[in-house]
């Protein structure tokens, strides 16, 4: 069913594009300042109304504006963390698959150990050790998420380095870095792109979870995960506070998942 894969890819791409658009145009789209009290609702959040379509929070801030600006930091962290993850994963996977032997053995046993460690716990411990900042969150998400990418890239690089054209280039005396960059990497690239889309849904979820646990990007930057954390004590009196930021995370993760699986399926057939 090629048409179904195409539809998934298209819908996913549209969802992701709409998110990027919202993030870029946030200052124009948001009706209010996301970090300031714009309503007199201190300690008593207001329900959705015409003036505040998604209500206000306990500090009198507009929820819609916070969600719109939250797209900026969520996408920034999601995509940058994915880039860190891919860099580590591709570097380790390529070296293991291409060089083989001892290099492969050592790197893959290290991967096995990292796979055994509980990801979220490790991330929490590392963030609290390094202190929550944008940079430490990116590094920590990268450290706990690269393993599956390294395994896939290793397998592809391994099969690639035994193909005739790579063997031929090697026989002609091409140095390893040239073989990797010119011959192996371009052929592994499509896999890397799929893994990147799927990886972003993972990093978005991990970042949201860390924010929810109070270990995300520090305030006053509006972040979806922390909005839910701040809303939990109001779940009876102001259910909209937790509902809408969660829908935003859900939308973003679903978009990247649809895009990733769509591309994967189209390529598989």
């Amino acid at each position, binding site marked *: 069913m090629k048409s179904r894969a195409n539809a998934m890819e298209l819908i996913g791409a549209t969802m992701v594009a709409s998110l990027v658009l919202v993030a870029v145009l946030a200052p124009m789209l948001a009706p209010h300042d996301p970090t300031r009290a714009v309503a007199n609702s201190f300690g008593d959040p207001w329900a959705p109304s015409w003036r505040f379509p998604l209500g206000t929070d306990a500090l009198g801030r507009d929820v819609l504006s916070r969600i719109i600006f939250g797209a900026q930091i969520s996408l920034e962290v999601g995509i940058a963390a994915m880039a860190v993850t891919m860099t580590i994963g591709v570097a380790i996977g390529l070296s293991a698959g291409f060089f083989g032997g001892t290099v492969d053995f050592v790197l893959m046993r290290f991967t096995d150990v990292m796979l*055994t460690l509980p990801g979220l716990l490790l991330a929490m411990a*590392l963030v609290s050790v390094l202190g929550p900042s944008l940079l430490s969150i990116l590094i920590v998400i990268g450290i706990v998420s690269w393993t599956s990418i390294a395994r896939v890239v290793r397998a592809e690089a391994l099969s690639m380095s035994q193909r005739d054209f790579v063997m031929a280039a090697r026989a002609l005396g091409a140095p390893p870095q040239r073989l990797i960059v010119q011959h192996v990497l371009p052929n592994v690239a499509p896999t890397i792109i799929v893994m990147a889309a799927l990886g972003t849904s993972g990093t978005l979820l991990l970042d*949201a*979870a860390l924010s*929810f646990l109070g270990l995300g990007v520090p305030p006053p930057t509006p972040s979806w995960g922390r909005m839910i954390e701040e809303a*939990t004590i109001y*779940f009876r009196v102001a259910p909209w506070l937790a*509902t809408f930021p*969660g829908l935003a995370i859900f939308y973003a993760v679903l978009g990247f998942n649809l895009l990733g*699986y769509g591309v994967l399926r189209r390529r598989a057939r």
Partner: protein
Amino acid sequence: MVAYLIRRVSFGAFVLLGTSLITFAIAFMVPADPAVAMAGAKADPHTLATIRHQLHLDEPLYVQYGDYLVRALHGDLGRSYIRRESVTRLIVSRFPATALLAVSAMVLSLILGIAMGLVAAAYRDTAIDNAQLIVSLAMVSMPVFWLGTMLLIAASAFTRGIPLGGLAGWKSLILPTITLALGSAGYYSRILHTNLSDAMEQEYVRTAIGKGLSRTRAMIKHAMANALLPLVTLAGLDLAGLLSGVVLTETVFNWPGIGRLAYEAIFSLDIPLIMGTVLFSAFLIVLANLAVDLMYAYLDPRIRLEEIG
């Protein structure tokens, strides 16, 4: 077979050694001084030195690590700095609550996942299959702590008898179990669907259909046996993950399990407790991997007989 066993067990031991090294390294990175954490910021240097000596913090790192390893092998994971209790005893006392939640979530996700996967495979390439694809992707994409909060909101608005947090009676299992199960159920249903569809193309199933068996019967009687095995492997590993504590769900529902224990340990920088919960988790995963390997060896004659042939 024996050689295979020895290989798998020593691999498990190696992985555990690696994880203990990494957790030890992280604990060493913690900026807080444990002696200050125990004695307070105003303690005089002599008291601090005494505490450091008692905790062996004045020894070289490799000696500290060696001590830690030897004691961990005897089941002693040290004492919590903040709670002043044995880490092993703390983990053991929290384990029943976590195990209860883990098992009930696993049962629900398997039932849901297998049912959804079976139906989608039976109606392959129809509207039902498409709907299942969308639903399962949505289930996988939901942040678990948000799903939990939404269930809290719904339960407090529309029901009376369902407890919203804590562990008191079987009813308090309802909300956290659903929260944990939905994501993996979506995942399992897709895996089962793929495996079933592949199995249906195999010669032995097509032969059965050619001999007059209906597609549905062929799927349940023949294809299912092969399609379920990878799923059981996956579920086994997931169960190990669940048993080591689920931080987010336990936080949302105030569940007295290992996940909450770990969460509190991290926020109070209680190093022995952090190391203990991480190591315990790694230990369970290594154990589950071993169990899966053994099951494969038992089921697959190629592994069972490799040393003889």
